[in-house]
């Protein structure tokens, strides 16, 4: 097992380098030149060349790549072309908000979607199942920006205490208002975004859980468990659920990068200062350093998430062994 873990970790290095080369190349091939976006309307070719040299963009692309890689290995992602601040500052000031929102969303999704999926599988074609099917399809079909605006107009404007955008009331913090008032204030700002984000994803996971559970409860070993005279609770939880969770665990692996990636649409509507808007803006402004940093963090997490899912398999399913 240890052997396997070490081998997998080592394999990640060439994989990530490969990803970074592809990312770097595609980014530079894409139309749009940061120097032209930054410099003025009537800049002469000489002035443009000078600015290009200041930003180190005059060198051949492979030289730029090697330099970039050297800095990254030292933990330095460079500075934004647009405002000159370190890329890591940009990411770190937005990361907490993205993590905070996504973490709460994820807990809610799994806490609700797994039991709902299980129950609707156990009572297939019951009223509950039909209702769940209806709402999950609705949840996936509703465009999130539309649903979000609907909530803002239907709930936000009418209620006096539910804020429609932002993360906190200006001036409310632990120092001035006390711990509980602060927690309550932050929670109020979470209600609308969490509702919108979780509804969409919850639908998918509940459907997954339902079909996975349906498959498992028809298996021979479940029938055997019942035949042994085990109580129904034990059959479902110990024998069926554990096996049915297996595909969900794979999804969890993919959720890791999702946890760090912002959702640009939700951030746009609820003015949530997360990473989604940062990467979107960086792409439009051809802010290469930020784009590369975001891509590489995303790629690393994706690779790690897959790896984690593989390891989790072993824990959930003792039949799987790596050597």
């Amino acid at each position, binding site marked *: 097992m240890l052997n396997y873990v070490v081998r997998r970790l080592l394999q990640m290095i060439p994989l990530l380098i490969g990803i970074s080369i592809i990312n770097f190349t595609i980014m530079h091939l894409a*139309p*749009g*030149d940061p120097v*032209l*976006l*930054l*410099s*003025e*309307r*009537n*800049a002469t070719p000489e*002035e443009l060349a*000078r*600015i290009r040299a*200041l930003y180190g963009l005059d060198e051949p692309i492979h030289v730029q790549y090697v330099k970039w890689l050297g800095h990254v290995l030292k933990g330095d992602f460079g*500075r934004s072309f*647009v*405002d*000159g*601040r370190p890329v890591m500052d940009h990411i770190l*000031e*937005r990361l907490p*908000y993205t993590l905070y929102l996504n973490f709460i969303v994820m807990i809610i999704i799994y806490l609700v979607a797994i039991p709902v999926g299980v129950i609707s599988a156990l009572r297939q074609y019951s009223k509950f199942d039909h209702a769940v099917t209806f709402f999950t399809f609705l949840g996936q079909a509703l465009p999130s920006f539309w649903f979000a*605006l609907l909530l*803002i*107009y239907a709930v*936000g*404007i009418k209620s006096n205490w539910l*804020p*429609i*955008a*932002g*993360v*906190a009331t*200006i001036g409310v913090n632990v120092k001035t208002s006390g711990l509980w008032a602060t927690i309550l204030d932050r929670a109020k700002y979470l209600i609308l975004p969490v509702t919108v984000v979780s509804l969409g994803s919850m639908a998918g996971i509940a459907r997954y859980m339902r079909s996975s559970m349906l498959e498992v409860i028809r298996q021979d070993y479940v029938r055997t468990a019942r035949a042994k005279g085990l109580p129904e609770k034990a059959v479902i939880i110990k024998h069926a659920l554990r096996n049915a969770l297996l595909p969900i665990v794979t999804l969890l692996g993919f959720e890791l990068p999702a946890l760090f990636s912002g959702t640009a649409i939700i*951030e*746009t*509507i*609820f*003015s*949530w*200062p*997360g990473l989604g*808007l940062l990467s979107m*803006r960086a792409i439009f402004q051809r802010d290469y350093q930020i784009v590369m940093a975001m891509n590489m963090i995303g790629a690393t997490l994706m690779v790690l998430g897959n790896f984690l899912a593989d390891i989790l398999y072993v824990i959930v399913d003792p039949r799987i062994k790596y050597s």
Partner: protein
Amino acid sequence: MYRKLASLVAVILTIAVFVTGCGSGTGQGKEGTGEKPTKGGQIVYGMTGDPVIFNPILATDTPSAFINERVYSGLVRANEKLELIPNLAEKWEFSDDGLVWTFHLKKNVYWHDGTKFTSADVKFTYEAIKHPDYTGVRRTDFKPITKIEAPDDYTVKLYLDKPYAPLLSKLTIGIIPKHIFESTPIAKMKENPANMNPIGTGPYKFKEWQKGQYILLEANDKYFEEGPYIEKVIVKFYQDEQVMLAALEKGDIDYMGSIPADEIARMEEKYSDRFVFKELPTNGYDYIGLKQTNPIFKDKRVRQALMYGLNREQIVKDVLKGYGTVMNANIPPVSWAYAGDVLNQYPYNPEKAKQLLEEAGWKPGPDGIRVKDGQRLSFKVLTASGNKEREAALLIAQQNWKEIGVEAIPEYIEWSVLCSQYLDVAKFESYLLGWSLGLDPDCYLFFHSSAAVDEKGQLVGFNDVEFKNADLDQLLEQGRTEMNQEKRKEIYVKVQKIINEELPYVFLFTRNRVSAMNKKIQGVVWSTLGPLFPEKWYIKQ
């Protein structure tokens, strides 16, 4: 390739600078109320987007300009008539040949950190812009300056290589503190932490920035002019117009600069007791640019027929919901140089359009589209995809022109592709877009023949339609060197007459926007372009 985009950003910035211009002087807002302004209270603005950098010589975006205009001051600023009035400079004079400009600075000005403001700061700021390592977009504005001198602490002399009147409007740019930026090389100016925590001379001090959420400014008690009265300025950032509108309805914000056109009627009906709604003309216009070298458009009568044959009143009514004005030349009504009624108004007249086309030799063909020498009167009109107003205007043009036997084929192209493959290389038959303009009526870069395509095929200025007219060239040159505003107005009226007659563009309209301001805010000077002089506003008791 992106020059057009960059230029748009730059001109939009000029406007933003104006719209939000903070100020001294006129005290008009208080007249008639009989009230004495009191200190205290707060105003909450809503803005879309996020500011980038609080350094007026590096910033290019509207949210940054909005903050910079409250934190920094320039030598001059614009008033509600778009005239330039004193700000950091008390007065100024031009030498007789227009080559030496002397500015006398106010003596009671301090930076927010307590340091005294002097002419050295002005010299430092302008020299930074002229430095070869400067990475912002203002270099061209300051190119006519050859030397900056600070003979004493309160005098600045600018030496020009030739008289250049539009320069004064560029001196609205905020002055940055030498004592904070001099230790950073110009090439690395962007990395100075003061860009994120600015020290200025303006009416408001920068207090706090929660990224992506809000900015808090506080009154500068040592401001060198009257005010500021409102103690706290909060700017909340939204990323979506509809959500910002909802925030306005809910009462989260006191001001929204531009309410979406199809919401205006509902808002005015519902909230007229809470907000003042002001309809303000904007400093820009939409047009269809006609490639002057194209065989179809070479004949002036065809260009004029396109104007007569287009119901532009209907476009304003249907597309802009009435919030706009038809344009007949290139200077909008907000400018002091606007020519107005002396221009041909080109009222909608399909018969006259048909007659002009007949005179030009275009006869109706078998499919209703006119033909001349075997060529159909048909051309493509490009526009950027995703702008609903422009798409709708283009559809009306297509229908109207079809009735006079002209076929316009709309093509919607993604913005960056439109710029890089068509406009910046000046290759197209015609296109529909808009210009946002600066404070000065100078339009040399749009219509002078030297701003067209050079011998290498490169577009020099923005004259992508390649309009060339010797009389106009001469007037545009005069307009730049004449220093007297009355005489300049005469020149620019002549410019508009030529453009109105020759029609490098089919001129469409200028938009009006509707702003909402909470009624508790008093003393607001509403100019044609926005609420001015925020330091003189106060809260109704």
